[in-house]
């Protein structure tokens, strides 16, 4: 063998070794992902089983029949239709209002100078580390005294003022070059006009990420709705599911159908917006878990 041949065969061996390593690594990672998603896979199959076959001596994914009707039954038995509508309306209102408030706040912090700005900004930073759920008792008491308990107003409004949204948008607004602002000013744009016509279009990617997080925040919220909502016709999905889970004689197949229908929208949103979500979470824009 010539040196040349030796070298190429050595190279190809190394390349082959690397290819095997790559394949093994990929397989292992997907196996872990599969094990990780087993609870959700099992939920899906459970949702299709006849009620008396949810539990059994042996593991079986498919029951004696595949009952897609469980999903329809969940609408009547768990009243999922009502819960879904409530959750959607509440989340939509929350999202819209969160975006407006966060935009105004972020704009003031990023682009305007006014007395007390540093102090107010510091206050916002401090609230990031406040354990918000600890303060539910006075919050409830306040709404109760104002005769606003068990209303969507009381459900929605306390969740609108988290500081993370304002921070995310501020970060993006700081990156906008000053020339654009000056040009708009020279054209005689008012501050309001500047925000609407120049700043907001430029931070649209951040706004859409914030919208997703605001929506999911409302969609997933549990403790506060559990406390403030009394009448079941106002319940959101998590309250309904919790109630249905903890009652005796749970119809697991219907409950799992409801869980699937609750998680499915999240899966779709995360799959579509994965790149933006990963970037925003990675930037620490929405805190930790």
């Amino acid at each position: 063998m010539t040196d040349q041949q030796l070298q190429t065969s050595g190279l190809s061996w190394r390349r082959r070794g690397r290819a095997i390593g790559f394949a093994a690594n990929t397989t292992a990672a997907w196996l872990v992902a599969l094990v990780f998603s087993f609870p959700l896979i099992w939920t899906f199959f459970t949702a299709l089983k006849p009620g008396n076959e949810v539990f059994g001596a042996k593991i079986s994914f498919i029951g004696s029949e595949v009952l897609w009707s469980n999903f329809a039954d969940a609408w009547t038995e768990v009243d999922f239709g009502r819960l879904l509508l409530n959750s959607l309306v509440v989340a939509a209102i929350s999202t819209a209002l969160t975006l407006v408030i966060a935009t105004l706040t972020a704009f003031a912090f990023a682009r305007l100078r006014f007395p007390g700005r540093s102090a107010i900004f510091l206050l916002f930073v401090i609230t990031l580390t406040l354990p918000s759920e600890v303060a539910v008792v006075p919050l409830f008491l306040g709404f109760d005294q104002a005769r606003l308990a068990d209303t969507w107003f009381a459900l929605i409004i306390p969740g609108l003022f988290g500081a993370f949204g304002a921070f995310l948008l501020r970060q993006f607004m700081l990156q906008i070059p000053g020339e654009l602002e000056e040009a708009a000013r020279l054209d005689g744009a008012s501050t309001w006009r500047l925000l609407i016509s120049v700043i907001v279009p430029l931070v649209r990617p951040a706004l859409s990420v914030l919208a997703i997080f605001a929506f999911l925040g409302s969609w997933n919220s549990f403790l506060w709705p559990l406390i403030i909502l009394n009448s079941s016709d106002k319940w959101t999905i998590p309250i309904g599911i919790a109630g249905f889970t903890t009652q005796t004689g749970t119809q697991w197949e219907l409950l799992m159908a409801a869980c699937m229908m609750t998680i499915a929208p999240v899966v779709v949103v995360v799959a579509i917006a994965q790149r933006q979500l990963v970037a925003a979470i990675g930037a620490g824009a929405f805190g930790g878990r």
Partner: protein
Amino acid sequence: MTFVRLDRPEEEVADASVAPPGRPKGRLRRRPLGGPRWVGWAFVLPGLIGLAVFIVIPQVASLILGFSDSTLLGGTRFTGGENFARLLRDPQFINSVIVTSIFVLVYVPANIAISMAMAMWLKTRIAGRNWIRVIFLIPALSPMVANAAVFRLLFQQDGVVNQALAAIGLEPIPWLSDGNWALAVVIGVSVWQSFGYNMIVLGAGLDSISPDVIAASRIDGAGPIRRFVSITLPLVSPALFFTTVLTVIGAWQTFAQAYVITGGGPGNSTMTIMLYLYQTAFTNNQLGYASAIATVLFVIIAIFTLFQLWGQRKWVHYD
């Protein structure tokens, strides 16, 4: 990286006042853009009022209510430190502090270790890496209640986990009827649900490390462990610090998992502080006493947070 610096926010403020690139500084001072100075206030006011009314004031009010015997029926009297004296003698409360401490002690390290390990693994060459990332992220962005309901199903006495154990010839485990196992399940679902989120924060931290630095250390002969301890860990420390602080804060407030899976049982073995607070306030209608619990929880969280802020000087490296 664009982390909000939890320790020195004033630097962020200073950073905010820096003129955007390309704008002459002097001119900015002479003629600040943005109209009259009160305009900024107009924009910040809605958010500020909301923050004050719905976040700051409830926190303060909670501290005050802790010294009262408030109930829903009204007739609030201030009772001094009576609630707190009662807390010290309340075995249920002391139990909930112990349960939550165990939860924090196991959950936080497990969460951070798995997040970090997975983030590093996903840095290696894997086909479909982005989709794996999405799979891990899904539970973190789904309702905790739905996730908890799923785990409640899995860990029933005749559920799939025990079926699997039987398949390999093991005895079934009384997951939800034994206190220790039940707490293990609650911790398990919490880790399963949330590490995907921290994994992404830490992954972004890892991404920001220049490959040149790693390459240089490799040339200098640093082994993988040495590289991890001396290069990766310090460089990822801001992200690590950030996730740890917020994960600890969240962990002390654990509620939904325990509420849905075990309801605090069996025999209070999964009764977290938040769950006890909830029951005291909204099942037993002792709002004053519940607020005293909230105060203790607040103090615990504050101590942990301040301790970490203080301790970060020793291990967190900002560039």
